[in-house]
Every structure is written in C-alpha cells, then in structure tokens.
C-alpha cells in the first residue's frame, strides 16, 4: 500500500492543472500522495485516524479552492504547503481541546499559512450555517433539498423517489421546504 502510494505521487504541476480541469484522477492521486505524511503527524501528536482524515481533507479543500480561485502561487512544494496547513489546523484544534501543544513533533518544513487557513475558516462558517439549517429542516425536506441542489437530481427523479403523484406536487413540496430552509438560514 505504502509503496503504491509513493509510486504515484503526481508532480505539483500535474496537480494544479488537473484540479483546474476537474480531473477526478488527479484529486485521487493528490489525496493518496500526502495522506500518510499527515497521518503520521497527527498520530504522533495526540490525534487519531479520524482527526487525520478531517484535518487532511480540510487542507485538501483549502488547496483545491485556492487553485480553483486561480491565485495559487507555487512558492513552495505542494507537500510543504499541505503539511503546513495541516499543522496549523491541528494546532488550532488541539488548543481548542485545551490539550498541550507545547511539544509538536514535526516531520517536514513548515511555512506560514495562517491567512489561508483563516480565510477558509470564515467560509466554513457559512457552510456550517447552511448545514445546521438543513439539519433543522427535518425529513423529507432535507433530502429533497439535498437531492435537488447538491446532487442535482431532476424534479422528475425526486418525484419518483418520494412517490409524489406528479411533479407539480413535488415542486410545491420542494418550494415549501425551500421557504422554511431560507427562513432558518436567514435567521440572525
């Protein structure tokens, strides 16, 4: 496993081009290329596999969005960038859990990524808001909304999935749900 992971490390250029072209294969390779590094870091600094997954995915998302925004300058190796972001996130989480962060065991070089992480956190607040609004919505509204907006199912599909007699009924239901969702979402 380890070997196959290491064998398929894409070049930094490949990753950037691949992400800009929405290549699932590139994302796959990128993800597998550096996960072990972050897993090792987290496991050796008071974390478990789930922590590693969360932190790593967050870092990948930050990198992904940065590349997509088109303002990613390759000033360092992607590996260093990912490691630095993960390290930053994990330190924050540790201090939130009020665990000791004095003695961090490092495995790679680190450089400053505070800005990127903070930007991401701001955006993430919006997503948390949306997620909690969806959670408050209850079924079947939540699933209908998710299916339509996130998974891009057609009203026809939704109609069949939920057993509405016709798409108009499904539509009416969807808008009812949407109205409630917006109400919750826009609640101060």
């Amino acid at each position, binding site marked *: 496993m380890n070997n196959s*992971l290491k064998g398929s490390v894409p070049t930094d250029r490949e990753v950037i081009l691949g992400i800009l072209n929405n290549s*699932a294969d590139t*994302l796959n390779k990128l*993800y597998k290329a550096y*996960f072990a590094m972050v*897993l090792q870091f987290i496991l050796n600094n008071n974390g478990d596999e789930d922590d590693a997954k969360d932190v790593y995915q967050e870092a990948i*998302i930050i990198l992904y969005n940065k590349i997509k925004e088109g303002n990613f300058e390759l000033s360092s190796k992607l590996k260093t960038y990912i490691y630095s972001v993960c390290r930053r996130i994990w330190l924050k989480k540790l201090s939130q859990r009020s665990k000791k962060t004095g003695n961090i065991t490092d495995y790679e070089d680190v450089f400053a990524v505070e800005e990127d992480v903070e930007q991401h956190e701001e955006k993430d607040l919006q*997503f948390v808001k949306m997620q909690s609004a969806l959670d408050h919505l209850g079924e079947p509204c939540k699933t209908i909304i998710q299916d339509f907006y996130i998974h891009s199912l057609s009203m026809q599909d939704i109609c069949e999935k939920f057993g509405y007699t016709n798409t108009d009924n499904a539509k009416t239901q969807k*808008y009812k749900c949407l109205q409630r969702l*917006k109400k919750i979402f826009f609640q101060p």
Partner: protein
Amino acid sequence: MPAAVKENIFSTLVIEMRNDLELDAIIEDYLLGKLNPQETEALEQLRRNDPAVDHKVVSHKFFLESMEMFAAQIRLKEQLNSIHAEINLEGLASSLRPHPSRVVQLWRKQKSAIAVAASFLVLSLVSVYSIQHNTKQKEQLVLLSNQVNKAIKTQNSLIRKINNTTTTAGKPVIQNSFGGTGFAISTNGYILTNLHVINGADSLYVQNNKGESFKVKSIYTDPQNDIAILKINDKNFSHLSSIPYTIKKNTSSIGEIVYTLGYPKDDAVLGEGYVSSKNGFVGDTTQYQVSIPVNPGNSGGPLLDANGNLVGIISGKPDQTEGAAFAIKSKYILEAMRAIPQDSLGTNRLSSNKKSLLSGLKRTKQIEKLQDYVFMIKVYN
C-alpha cells in the same frame, strides 16, 4: 411546466400576489435563467414596482449562491471520502502510529536531533584531533624557539628564599629572608655580592663559615653590573688575614676549569665546572656562561680558576637550560672597588697585582683557605 399554466400563475400573481410559494418558484427560475423573455420582462417589471419582490429576488440570489458553494463543498468532501475509503487506513496507521517501543519512538521523533548530535560528535572529534595536532606543532615550535633564541628565557637570579617561621608568644611571625653569597674584597670587612641579593633589604647580615653573624650595610651598588659592596659594621668582627685570591686580569677561555663556593644551604657548597661561553645571558658581554650546577643561594659567590684567581661572580642561571650559570666578569669587580673611597678599603685589599695564595694548592687546601672569606648574605625584609 406548460406555458398556459405558467401564464395562468403569472396573471394570478400579478393580480393577487398571494402565493409566495409560486413566486419563489418563479424567482428561482428567473435566477436560473429558465424563464422566457416575456416572463423575465414581467418579473423585472414586478421588481421595479414592488420592493418586497425585489428583496425576495436579491435574498434568493444570495441563498442560491450560498447553496451552490455549499453543494460544491459537499460534493468535494464526498469525493474525498470515497478516495479516503480506498486507503488501507489500518495498515498505514499501524506503521505510522507511535511505536510501542520507546526506542523506536525516540528514534522516529528525534531522528533529526540524533543526526545533529551525531554530526556534532564527529565534528568535536575532528576538532579535538586537530587541536591535538596543533598543540604538537606548537610544542615543536617552542622547542625550536628555544634553540634559536634564548632571549625568551628569563634569567633566574640565584637568591635563596628562606621562610623563617618563628613563633613568638603563640603568634606566628613569618619573616621572609633571602640568602645569597658574598666574598671579602678587603681584610677590614668589605664584602662584594650581587645587587639583586640585597635589593629591597630591610636589614643585612653576613654569616661566616663558623656560624658567626655580623651586621652589614650596603656601601655601594652598581645596578648595571648587578654588583653591591657591603661593609661589616659590627664590633665583634675581627679583621681577616690577607685575601688569598687575586683578580684575574685576562678574560678566561672557554673550557677553563672553574669552581665556586656558595651558600645554597646553610653550609658552604662547592660547585665545579668550566667556562662554557665567553658571553652570558642573551650574549651579555659583561658575563661568562659557566657550566656549574648552581642553586638559589649561589648568587654573589666567587668564581675562581684552578690557581685561585677570581674569574667572576656567580649571578644567575638561565631559566630552562640545566647546569648552566652566568658569572659577572672579574674586571667589573675592580671597577666597583674603584668606585668606593680607596682609603676605606685599607691596604690589605683584593687586587690583581699580587700572586694568589691559593696558587699551586690542592683543591681541598684551596677551599680550606677560601672558606673564611666567603660569607652567607642574609637578607631580611
């Protein structure tokens, strides 16, 4: 949605505007660009006329954008999760988890520190080695400089330092005294020695070979040639019989056998050797270098040749050369003697004109005669 129905909804909306739900649907279609030009125009008209509708459009637009970003994030996360599921987490984690063995854990954690420590160790070994190497070279250099330039050496004056510890009334009084040697230059109590022997003295005494002490005082000093002349100032002192030795006029040659009598300890000690160089310390022409084992206390002692002629005054020895000593040449003795009032020396004085009384005698006889004229100088300060 059939156009007729839509039209129908529209007119209902326009007229009554009650059905929020359907308005939402139309706004969404509008924002997604699904309305036909006619309907778009109608809604835009509505927006302009009714701020409430306009607000709805704006807020829905914002909502849809948020939703789209959220959706993108969720989709990306799902994608990542599916990739994550392909990873053999267990295998990977067990190989990377902190090892149960502390040694391995330590090695992993401190890998870089250990590397630094190791390189430091190597570096220190190299530096220690090179320092040792350097030291060796330095030693050789010192030896070399010894050979080349004796100037570095200090001249050890042969003063004997005696620690006289006298305990009086329970209170220890430490009296520092120095010792040297001197010899008579006249029968009436003039004694010649080295200036450095008596330098800084509070009180001066001489002691003859019988152990009698006489108080003396310094009459003349010659710092340049390191010569001092003392005068016994003691009523117990009886005049000596005539001086057995004479001053040698010519300079001695290298290899000439010489000897000295001195007081490196409380009894007179004979030292014998030969003139080893015509010049003394750092090529000092006022001195000879002689090869005689001398010790502190020998300073000021007479240096005589085999016939009992005064060759010089033992004055010092080089710091680092064993067995060598320096002696002030005898002609400076004469110079010093001329510097004091001639009458005071009396008629029976040391001169270069007489024949030495020691000439032709065996060494033991010479010493027997000589020892009455050689004094231990005791210096208290």
